[in-house]
């Protein structure tokens, strides 16, 4: 009898809770509370495909941030380390860089996928596919740099042994595009505005366009992440920063001309035509559609297979992602 009574109570409780659930709308985790800080620091690098973080400047101001600092870094310089150290608060960076940094133990929290595309593998005429890179010279600035990591993964995908089959030309002082234009290397991985520049000059051709070619086009290339302590300590600010960046991504997709103009006016790109072409060439409208966890899983597996990282995708996802802000924004911000 007491057991029956307990069961009834439990069921009654469940039904009441259910009724409450039916009547209640989900309440935002970081509802529009007061900003915990009005200062924000974001990396500025000479790669214009990560445009949303630059286009977001005015949107961040509209969200209530008054001190917005874009901290300048040179091409190829690692921004995950300053992000982990708290010298930056947020960054939109390549998923590969984030995965490698998290594997190295850097306290970064990934918040959303931002865009698809960004890099294009350029080669000399006569080279028809990645497998043709066997015995060819490929340029990069440093071992373990993003181009090196990505090209290694790409080569391994088609059965090449990247260490033995590719003749890597490494020079930290000379940009690979310069060597490619001079005819000193056979291929290199180009990042905007390099592809736009090469196309304008009619040099080389594209072997892989990650905005269009599978499997790369099926995953986010670039993600938005924050310093872990900042994200935990300042949830309202975190949500507003993410909202500004994702609104900016929508703007890059729907109004590329205006977004390109803002990049030039803000000093993020010297050339309007290259900025516009970059915005048109890449996919900025996928943040609602693609699953950011898929991108982490994909790149973590490839990097692990190639020996770049040790952690499993599950561990990286469990320890260093927080999609709650993104999930809320998917419901709150339609387009």
């Amino acid at each position, binding site marked *: 009898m007491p057991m029956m009574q307990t069961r009834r109570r439990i069921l009654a409780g469940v039904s009441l809770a259910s009724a409450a659930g039916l009547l209640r709308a989900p309440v935002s985790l970081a509802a529009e509370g007061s900003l915990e800080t009005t200062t924000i620091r974001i990396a500025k690098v000479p790669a214009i495909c990560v445009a949303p973080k630059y286009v977001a400047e*005015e949107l961040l101001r509209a969200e209530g941030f008054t001190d917005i600092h874009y901290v300048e870094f040179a091409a190829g310089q690692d921004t995950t380390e300053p992000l982990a150290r708290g010298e930056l608060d947020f960054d939109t960076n390549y998923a590969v860089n984030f995965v490698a940094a998290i594997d190295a133990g850097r306290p970064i929290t990934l918040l959303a996928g931002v865009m698809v595309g960004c890099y294009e593998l350029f080669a000399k005429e006569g080279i028809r596919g990645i497998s043709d890179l066997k015995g060819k010279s490929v340029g990069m600035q440093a071992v373990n740099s993003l181009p090196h990591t990505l090209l290694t993964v790409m080569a391994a995908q088609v059965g090449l042994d990247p260490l033995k089959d590719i003749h890597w030309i490494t020079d930290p002082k000379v940009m690979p595009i310069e060597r490619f234009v001079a005819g000193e290397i056979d291929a290199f991985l180009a990042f905007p505005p390099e592809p736009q520049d090469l196309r304008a000059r009619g040099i080389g051709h594209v072997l892989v366009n990650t905005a269009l070619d599978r499997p790369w086009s099926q995953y986010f290339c670039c993600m938005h992440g924050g310093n872990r302590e900042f994200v935990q300590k300042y949830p309202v600010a975190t949500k507003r920063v993410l909202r500004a960046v994702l609104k900016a991504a929508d703007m890059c997709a729907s109004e590329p001309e205006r977004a390109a103009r803002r990049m030039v006016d803000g000093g993020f790109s010297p050339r309007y035509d290259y900025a516009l072409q970059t915005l048109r060439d890449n996919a900025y409208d996928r943040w609602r559609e693609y699953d950011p966890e898929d991108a982490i899983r994909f790149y973590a597996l490839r990097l692990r297979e190639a020996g770049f990282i040790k952690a499993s995708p599950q561990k990286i996802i469990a320890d260093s992602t927080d999609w709650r802000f993104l999930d809320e924004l998917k419901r709150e911000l339609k387009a």
Partner: protein
Amino acid sequence: MRRPLLLALALLVSPALTVAHEAQDGKRLPVIGPAPSFALTSQDGAPVTLAALRGKIVAVSFIYTQCPDICPLLIQKMVQVQGELGADFGAKIAFVSITLDPEHDTPEVLKDYAQFWGTKPEGWTFLTGSPEAVRDVTRRYAVFVAKNANGSVDHTQLTSIIDAESAMRVQYLGARFDPEEFRRDLLSLLHRP
């Protein structure tokens, strides 16, 4: 016999299942937080506040009458939705369009604009005010606004749906959204607030 039946009933209405279903079909809109208030002037010269609209579902958008491209697309879309809302439009659902160019968009200019687009005055109010008052509203709605030298206004095209309790429930960015989804969201707040 009764035990499985009771369990099945309890499971059917369990909150977890309800949330999963809602997330999937999007019928229950989230509560983002209290909607920012405003006190501005209508196309008829009357004072209008968000507080006075409490009890109605309100769609707040930002436009300016000389906007050449995106605002007309938005207005056109909302005119279509206005027609589909029938008797609820005005009685239970209101549209509010706030100008981003108050120096140019006086009540008279807004009245002409409203008439040009065939908006129904019983449910659609166009608002203007002092530049400071409008700037304050755009700031609190997190709408970016920058006036260019040629008179055009760079701005975020943001439309917010506010429920009868003045809580912000969802925002639409741009003018490419599905008007049917927009109409459904408005009606969902009438029927399942």
